């Protein structure tokens, strides 16, 4: 069992987009820029919603954009983007979305600790604090706190 590899985390506050596809692209773009994912990953994230519906909208106002490791992931990564204006994903209950996470994992295990920690923080009200952040710097420190918490917790395997 390998330890938790350091994840690339990126935060961007108050981004301007005109629709859900653009929101997904915007959430993936800095991860492409940092070399964690390939450009095609964002397009696959969009296709998954087109094929399967907007189930990635996992809570009111919150989307979790992701595809599979083989869709172009090089390193474990997680981005958070708050939107200036919320967008509709077509979800019957959780629209509109103003908080978009994107993550990529190079295999089916590396992201588990990170996502579990994110889930726990969301259960405890992290979304409210993220929405209140006015700058990318504030958002970034909130996300770093999530990523740092992973290292202290033992990886939960299967």
């Amino acid at each position, binding site marked *: 069992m390998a330890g938790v590899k350091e994840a690339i985390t990126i935060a961007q506050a108050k981004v301007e987009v005109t629709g859900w596809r653009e929101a997904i692209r915007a959430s993936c773009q800095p991860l492409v820029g940092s070399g964690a994912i390939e450009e095609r990953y964002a397009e696959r994230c969009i296709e998954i919603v087109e094929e399967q519906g907007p189930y990635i909208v*996992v809570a009111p106002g919150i989307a979790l954009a992701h595809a599979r490791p083989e869709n172009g992931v090089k390193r474990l990564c997680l981005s958070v983007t708050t939107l200036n204006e919320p967008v509709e994903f077509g*979800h019957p209950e959780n629209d509109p979305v103003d908080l978009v996470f994107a993550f990529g994992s190079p295999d089916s295990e590396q992201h588990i600790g990170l996502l579990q920690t994110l889930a726990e923080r969301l*259960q405890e009200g992290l979304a409210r604090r993220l929405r209140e952040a006015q700058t990318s710097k504030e958002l970034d420190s909130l996300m770093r706190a999530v990523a740092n918490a992973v290292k202290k917790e033992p990886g939960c395997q299967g």
Partner: protein
Amino acid sequence: MTKKGHLKEPLKVMTICGVGMGSSLILRSTAEKALRQLGVDAEVAHEDVSSARSVDADVIIGQALHTEEFENAAPVVVTISDFTDVDALANKLRAPLKEQGWLV
């Protein structure tokens, strides 16, 4: 497959989503907490919908989009729209688990 009555072994719970990596994993964490809150001994796994079709479970949890096709695939199928709300999920699980005799 159905374990009617008092539980002798942990309940097999499955959270589902399209890819089986992200959304269902978030929901798994929430389900584990909700079941703990209810005092139900359970093992929770997360799956994508296509793998889920071939897995036996006592309880399946997911979004309406996915649970519709699983309506008769498990004794208890629960639909939830907020994957991060532990209390809401515990409330939704309470009645059907009681009905099965898995919760007193």
